[in-house]
């Protein structure tokens, strides 16, 4: 999974490194080909959201030994280095047998020839039937599946329940209501930002692009075409940015904010509502105990009611083509993505499991910071265009460039035209 910005991931990774101190255990040394025959399997897992997972690894190792008789070797990779390390692993063949791979990276690596086609195994085992559709999409390239969803997350609006109660407000259920809510908050809470619009958070804008019926890109035959300049996408973006430009929902500085700055502003009590991923609100009360019990979440409303589609990001488990133990690797992928280990991992990391059956349990949770997100994920989770070059669009920050330029005065028409052309060019290049 690659969340909206590398910096955020790096900060998260750095934070968890601090939390974990130097006590790095459970990650023995390199080499996928160590040992004789099928006796061991190397697995790369991303670090950055989970301070200490050694208990979980121990359990996975025990279960793997029991099921296959083979030894599992776990190696933790920092999210911030993960893409580079995987590229090097593909190039040098010194990589793992199985790796966690971000959903937006999966088509890219699959197209480049680094991952094993798992379509038959997935279909034979029935794993795919229960998978959340957006996760299945993310692992599909040219009709073939290259990974199995392991865990995921999505975004919604996190808000201050105490302020809503004080001012007699209700979570909005349409765009018109959200706009009048912003107007009311601007009047009643002059010291706070009603709903900051971060120029650097492309996945914050996605629900408004999708919610108006637009998309980032569309595929015609084997050619991709940027679609941000469609009337629908422009309508959604106009609405979203006008909240900042005309309705005082945001601040001057927010034009260059990242998603982490939104969280920061909310934690400091300076914002009433912010778009955040479900894995973050837990840290708000930790950092600012005053806000404990005063935080809630609701789905980003659809234009005329319901929920707007929200980006569903997460991780797939994939088998590397260079692995010499394809069957054993598949057994491991199956073990991790079905059954209790998947649920346990999701709970520990504050993410959601990848199967609909497991996720439904989260949607019924009494926790006000869990159920709304789980419902969004079940009903309105959506993936970015499943194009191998989408990673390059993310790297280029095309969508953030567009948002930032609109927020600093460029017209929606000009900015979306430029972004669309850039997306068309990037998605059709390099293959």
């Amino acid at each position, binding site marked *: 999974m690659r969340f909206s910005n*590398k*910096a955020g991931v790096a900060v998260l990774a750095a934070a968890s490194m601090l939390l974990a101190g130097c006590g790095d255990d459970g990650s023995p040394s390199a080499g996928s080909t160590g040992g004789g025959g099928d006796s061991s399997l190397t697995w790369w897992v991303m670090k950055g959201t989970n301070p200490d997972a050694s208990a979980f690894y121990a359990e996975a190792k025990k279960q793997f030994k029991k099921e296959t008789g083979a030894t599992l070797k776990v190696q933790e990779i920092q999210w911030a280095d993960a893409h*580079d390390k995987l*590229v090097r692993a*593909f*190039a040098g063949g010194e990589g793992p047998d199985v790796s966690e791979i971000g959903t937006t990276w999966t088509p*890219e*690596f699959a*197209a*480049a*020839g*680094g991952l094993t086609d798992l379509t038959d195994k997935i279909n034979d085992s029935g794993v795919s039937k229960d998978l959340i559709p957006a996760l299945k999409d993310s692992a599909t390239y040219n009709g073939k599946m290259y990974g199995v969803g392991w865990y995921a997350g999505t975004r919604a609006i996190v808000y201050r329940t105490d302020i809503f109660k004080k001012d007699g407000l209700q979570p909005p259920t349409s765009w018109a209501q959200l706009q009048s809510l912003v107007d009311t908050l601007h009047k009643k809470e002059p010291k706070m930002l009603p709903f900051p619009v971060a*120029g*650097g958070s492309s996945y914050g804008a996605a629900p408004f692009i999708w919610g108006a019926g637009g998309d980032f890109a569309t595929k015609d035959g084997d050619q991709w075409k940027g679609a941000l300049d469609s009337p629908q996408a422009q309508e959604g973006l106009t609405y979203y940015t006008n909240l900042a430009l005309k309705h005082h929902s945001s*601040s*001057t*500085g*927010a*034009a*260059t*904010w990242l998603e982490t700055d939104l969280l920061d502003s909310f934690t400091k009590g300076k914002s009433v509502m912010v778009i955040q991923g479900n894995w973050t609100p837990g840290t708000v009360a930790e950092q600012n105990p005053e806000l404990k019990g005063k935080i809630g979440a609701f789905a980003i409303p659809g234009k005329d009611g319901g929920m707007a589609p929200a980006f569903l990001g997460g991780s797939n488990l994939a088998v590397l083509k260079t692995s010499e133990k394809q069957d054993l690797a598949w057994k491991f992928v199956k073990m991790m993505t079905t059954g209790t280990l998947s649920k346990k991992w999701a709970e520990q990391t504050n993410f959601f499991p990848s199967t609909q059956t497991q996720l439904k349990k989260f949607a019924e949770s009494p926790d006000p910071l869990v159920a709304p997100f789980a419902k969004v994920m079940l009903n309105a989770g959506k993936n970015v265009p499943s194009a191998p070059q989408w*990673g*390059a669009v993310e*790297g*280029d*920050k095309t969508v*953030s*460039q567009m*948002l*930032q330029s609109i927020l*600093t005065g460029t017209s929606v028409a000009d900015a979306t035209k430029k972004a669309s052309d850039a997306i068309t060019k*990037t998605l059709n290049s*390099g*293959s």
Partner: protein
Amino acid sequence: MAGTTVSGGSRATLEPPEPRDPSLHSRPRPLRVRLRPWLLLAAPLVVIGALLIYPIVRVAYLSFHRYGLKEVISGHPVFTGLDNYREVLGGSYLWKTVLPNTVVFAAFAVVGTIVLGTLVALLLQRVGPAVRAAIIASALLAWALPAVTGTYVWVWIFDPDSGVVRKMLQGVGLLGPEGFNWFTERLSFYAIATLNVIHHGYPFIAITIFAGLTTVPAELHEAAKIDGANAWQRFWQITVPMMRPVFAVVTILSTIWDFKVFAQVYLMPGGSGSNPDVFNLGVWSYVESINRNQYGLGASIAVLLTLVLLVITVVYLRALFREDEIS
């Protein structure tokens, strides 16, 4: 890349003038003696070769190839001739945005660093030992501060919503209640970056020049004083000519450092990709290669940056030597 230019540049100017005694050159020295310096240099040369020469050759090689994810995995870069260079040099982006950002910024930063460094050095010469120690200590603190930390401090100072500068300007009525996002305009963005780089770079210049100043014989100044020269005249007529080699070194070093500034731009809001108006050559190269996996294209930008630096260094060194010959 720059490392080689650094050592080349400084060596050329720091080396004592060739001994003019012809007897030294007339008689060939034994092989053992001639090999001795190379033997002594062997270990560092091997390290430099591995850490500098190989990457330079590899970057130059990749700049003529398409080297994306697919090629990384297959291990076979695809030769594309001058395509990467055509793409970089062809559009208006290099000429209208990236190159002006790099060159104009570097010019202001170099001049600013050297002027401030010289002024501080002159101040150090004037004050007593206690004050001097205090100034040196505070300057060294700015120098020792990692670029990352320093950049975040400047970003904090200029924070569009709650920064010190906004509050100050609003206090005196120069800024409206909406504030201003300094990071979205190219000019204000680079003004902040220039402040940051000057603040970070001046201590080294100040201390180097201060060290140089101590070598200027006091008699010269006394003599000039007796002849009626004022401080301004003495600075330009005595200090500057005597210190020309020192100024040459600090100018070349500053030019190289300020041309390849990366962290100070990349870490500012918008500098890491969301505002392409503010890219310089270093950031552009990084974004193309690492963020977009177009390692060949990124390599060609890096090669261009190196070539620009080489040209500037060579032109500057030649100008310097010509002046030396005249005097």
